[in-house]
């Protein structure tokens, strides 16, 4: 049970959002650190916050831009909090927001920036191992067999899910089509003006079965930032606050066991986190209005939605349809900016920004009267994380 005295619910809020232009991989005209600064300044401007008031930073996915460097470059009077979530990919996205909220609630800092910046032309490609001659440790039991990339790591889990519950290919397609559909309304989206037809989805090459090309996230350059502060301070800023009702991070028993030995294998890793999130917020899946669900690969979205209680695993192809997953009329609208598949793969921070827009009522695919806006970050890795935002405190 949740200790109500200690719960994070309603104590903090997201008050500012900022992004650079989103680019295709290696096409950013600016270096990564410059884009990181741009996004942070844009978030402060959006919030109506004096840059000097920023006093903390949180990030994830081994971001290269160190808070001490950022704070000094910006001439901030004080750095009071800096924090990084372990783990690659986007599993730490909502966790970074959770850490920022915890810091604010504990009084460690007043205005904590959560950021992510990526320039793959300046640095190496994300998710690709540098060429090695020898490999030791757990990877010695996978790489020599040609199991190398994230897609290959996660296809194995999704295949098992499809075997256990019978289905999932149609749901994967619906997730992809919904993301591309929403991107057509969003001028920031890298895939804006490039709609995806059913024929193109079905005719696309396999990357690794059961993932076709359009089941896989893009690779992009850019930067994004948000500002977390107390609910009281947020109320004095420019936009209606997106109140943080709950944010959880972690994974179930043994999910870090090497060589695909997690006891519960056909999972996105949200089974325990979803329960904690709903307990903390005091709500259930039927109360959620809109969802931003991290798509490294569409099969992970299907499993995330199941584990957050939106659908039984045996029914994914029946419930997770294009009609249901699209705004404004679907019963389960997801990834309303285009998300990692079609807006920008900013490792899911763009999904958190979109969740804030849905609370503010400013999405390009707005759902009516949003009270509760859910984010799920980084399925199938460990740790994963999730975040529930509300229009009310």
């Amino acid at each position: 049970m949740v200790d109500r005295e200690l719960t994070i619910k309603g104590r903090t809020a997201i008050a500012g959002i900022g992004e650079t232009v989103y680019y295709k991989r290696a096409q950013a005209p600016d270096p990564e650190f410059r884009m990181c600064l741009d996004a942070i300044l844009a978030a402060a401007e959006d919030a109506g916050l004096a840059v000097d008031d920023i006093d903390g930073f949180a990030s994830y996915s081994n971001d290269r831009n160190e808070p001490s460097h950022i704070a000094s470059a910006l001439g901030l009077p004080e750095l009071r909090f800096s924090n990084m979530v372990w783990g690659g990919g986007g599993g730490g996205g909502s966790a970074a927001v959770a850490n920022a909220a915890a810091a604010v609630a504990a009084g460690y800092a007043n205005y904590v920036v959560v950021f992510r910046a990526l320039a793959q032309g300046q640095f190496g490609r994300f998710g690709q191992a540098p060429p090695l001659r020898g490999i030791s440790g757990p990877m010695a039991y996978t790489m020599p067999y040609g199991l190398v990339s994230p897609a290959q790591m996660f296809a194995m889990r999704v295949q098992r899910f499809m075997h256990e519950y019978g289905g999932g290919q149609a749901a994967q397609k619906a997730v992809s089509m919904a993301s591309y559909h929403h991107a057509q309304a969003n001028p920031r989206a890298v895939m804006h003006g490039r709609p995806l037809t059913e024929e193109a989805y079905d005719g696309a090459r396999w990357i690794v079965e059961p993932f076709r090309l359009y089941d896989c996230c893009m690779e992009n350059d850019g930067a994004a930032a948000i500002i977390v502060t107390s609910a009281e301070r947020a109320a004095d800023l420019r936009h209606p606050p997106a109140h943080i009702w709950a944010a959880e991070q972690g994974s179930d028993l043994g999910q870090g066991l090497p060589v695909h030995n997690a006891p519960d294998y056909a999972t996105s890793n949200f089974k325990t986190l979803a329960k904690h999130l709903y307990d903390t917020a005091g709500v259930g899946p039927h109360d959620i209005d809109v969802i931003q669900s991290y798509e490294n690969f569409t099969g992970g979205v299907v499993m995330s939605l199941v584990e957050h209680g939106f659908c039984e695993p045996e029914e994914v192809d029946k419930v997770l349809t294009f009609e249901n997953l699209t705004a404004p009329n679907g019963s389960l609208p997801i990834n309303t900016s285009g998300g990692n598949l079609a807006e920008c793969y900013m490792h899911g921070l763009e999904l958190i920004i979109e969740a804030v827009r849905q609370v503010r009522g400013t999405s390009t695919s707005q759902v009516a009267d949003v009270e509760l806006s859910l984010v799920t970050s980084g399925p199938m890795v460990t740790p994963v994380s999730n975040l529930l935002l509300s229009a009310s405190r």
Partner: protein
Amino acid sequence: MSATDAYLPAGLPAPASEALDETYWSAATDHRLMIQCCQGCGRHQWGPEWICNKCRSFDLEWVEVEPRGVIYSWERIWHPVHPALVEACPYVVVLVELPHADGVRMVGNLLGDPTEEVQIGSEVEGVFEDHPECEPPYTLVQWRRLP
């Protein structure tokens, strides 16, 4: 179970042993499959670890297990992500469960025609794939369907 030609082309990173798993790699070159078994609770465990994740005993012993199992999951890879694999696609990677060793799972390639249908639950046996040309030499454990 004899040595076979390599399933994938040369050029992928070669496995290198470390203190924890030296026994596995040297046994493999002798065409024996060895994994860890806890002397505290008797449970097999994989991959290599310093402690039993069930009873937390540090007394893990390497024991030989029969290289037989069932396909727990699989994938057919069409897009090469390593220069050595450009000519190798499609190829099949399987996750094999060893029911007689507490259900530990191992990753390997499924030998044979890569376009053939793969069934979860199919029985497979291990095949030791030697790489004597490498320095130091090593052996991979591959899998083929039982008739």
